[in-house]
């Protein structure tokens, strides 16, 4: 459960880190803009009633966009009004670091699938995460990462016949 962030205030708020209020307002503005964009695009598609074909393709999304923008507007007003209570930081440093510790390697992992194939990339990703984030011994990292991935390879490629992206290593091993 997320803790109720509106009741706690942090007087030592440092500059440079976004507060809850900034994030709330940012998302609200995004929603207004997104809603407007959707409506505008739907209007071009034909958001009006046609006697011949009934409601056009953009009819439903057009009103969805308008309603979303209105919601964004209401969220914006609420966030501005509650700003004194939303001074607390969106995320604390000691929380942001572990979040990035997993998120950045995840992006690298997904990127490396394009080159290494899914299975090799998985072993590298899991082993490195255990080593650098979990500070475990290298041999443990390699065993704990490769055994389950080999099992997954067998399960998906041999049993379920669901192909995952492959790299050069699988070909070299003749699998």
């Amino acid at each position, binding site marked *: 459960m997320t803790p109720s962030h509106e009741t706690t205030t942090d007087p030592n708020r440092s500059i440079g880190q976004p507060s809850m209020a900034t994030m709330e307002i940012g998302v609200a503005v995004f929603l207004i803009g*997104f809603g407007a964009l959707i409506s505008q695009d739907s209007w071009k598609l034909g958001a009006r009633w046609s006697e011949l074909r009934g409601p056009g393709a953009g009819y439903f999304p057009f009103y969805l966009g308008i309603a979303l923008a209105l919601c964004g507007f209401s969220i914006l007003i609420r966030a501005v009004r509650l700003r004194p209570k939303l001074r607390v930081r969106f995320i604390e440093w000691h929380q942001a670091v572990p979040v990035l510790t997993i998120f950045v390697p995840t992006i690298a992992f997904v990127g490396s699938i394009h080159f290494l194939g899914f299975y090799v990339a998985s072993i590298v990703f899991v082993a490195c995460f255990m080593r650098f984030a979990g500070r475990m011994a290298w041999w443990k990292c390699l065993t704990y990462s490769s055994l389950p991935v080999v099992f997954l390879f067998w399960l998906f490629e041999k049993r*379920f016949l669901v192909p995952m992206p492959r790299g050069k290593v699988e070909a070299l091993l003749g699998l």
Partner: protein
Amino acid sequence: MESFTYLWHGFQTALTPYNFGLMLLGITLGVLVGVLPGLGGPNGVAILLPLTYGMSLLPGGTTSAIILLSCIYWGALFGGAITSILFNIPGEAWSVATTFDGYPMAQQGRAGEALTAAFTGSFVGALFSVLLITFLAPVIANFALRFGPPAFFGVYFLTFASFSGTSRSPFSKTAAATLFGFILAAVGMDTVSGTLRLTFGFETMIGGFDFLVAVIGLFGLGEILLSMEEGLAFRGGKAKLDLAIVFKTWRDMFRHWKTLLQGCLIGAWMGVKPGGAIAASFMAYAVAKRTGKNPEEFGTGRIEGVIAPETAAHSAGASALLPMLTLGIPGSGTAAVLLGGLMMWGLQPGPTLFAEQKEFVWGLIASMYLSNVVGLIVVLATVPLFAALLRIPFAVIAPFIIVACVMGAYTVHNSMFDVWLMLIFGIIGYLCKKLDYPLAPLTLALILGDKMEDAFRQSLLGSRGSLLVFFSQPLEATLMIAGLILIAWPLVTGRRRKRIGGEGDR
């Protein structure tokens, strides 16, 4: 009487060794999914859904597939209680109320008693709702066969409106999340005219967003990012559960039959509405506290405080399948993903399901009886194992959950684009949770968006563009007005509460 014949056939289908094996597998996977942080019912089912596609092509395969997936659902419902009681960490939102008395009990060395009470309560709750489904579902489906597009639009409208009543987020955020889901659903080829919509020139967007990719990102990756905020430290613990404690607790539970019954009724009633399990667990806890003999002792380790929310949550979880089977409208996030599975296997959810797919429907209902019995035995037997599993460092579990999310997203369409999309949805899910936007209506809107739009457009075609079609018949008008009241209710009461309390917007 006709139903009983079908139910009997259903039992025969569900009891074949293959299906029974899938049941055991599903329950075990489900408990795992419910226990591990970062994996939950909707996400666990979503990751496995693409794998069931091959299964569904075999004769009778759709029944096997739904048995596997629904058992993951039951397992997750059971599993949520384990972490709540042992570690004060609710594995799922509906087990938050279980921590109030469950964790104090565990601290007093009564973890075995609390776990037995939670599992047995869950079992009784589910059984109650499954009985309800057996008797009510055919009747409701039969009634709904006469629904036209305006009535279906009314039912959809009521479904989404009830989110604003059960969600604890501000109304504007619930509405924004719902609308965002609808807009995502509209992307891609328009089902009526074939026009491309909202693709903004990107060819990859022609097929639209697959809800599975969204669910895996929103619930899976988003949840992992949120769990990581607590750092990598994750406390594991020991749990002992022997037969003597189980039988002793069962004997004690007879004295709490009133709490059990309250939980069943509240759960079954609330579960039909979306997001009901969470509200039901809290409500059952509050009712048990109010009607109990010593209300002030609640929160210090009363067994009723565990029985009530668990019974209600499981009862709600089961009754959430009632509208899914009869109307094609899921009552919970996981039910929504199951519904998506039905569509993927080529089944047409809705009232016709009961008429056309008798084997499937009754196989599922029969499996619900069996799997809850099996589930109770499995969880009672394996609690120490799952508790031990939590001693594995999070640094080992977290990357594997991400690998599972990537696999799940990729196998939907064998496309890396979906994996990147899943990452984006992960960020969205994380932001939504941090900023208190509810994810359940977003998911439901993404799944039901096209159907709701079809109902809307067909209704308007019939009425030549007049919105009054939704209010012209008594049934449609009742549904629409009930929906409007549900939407207006929190706005009215919220404003009044603020005037009296003078603070807060909730």
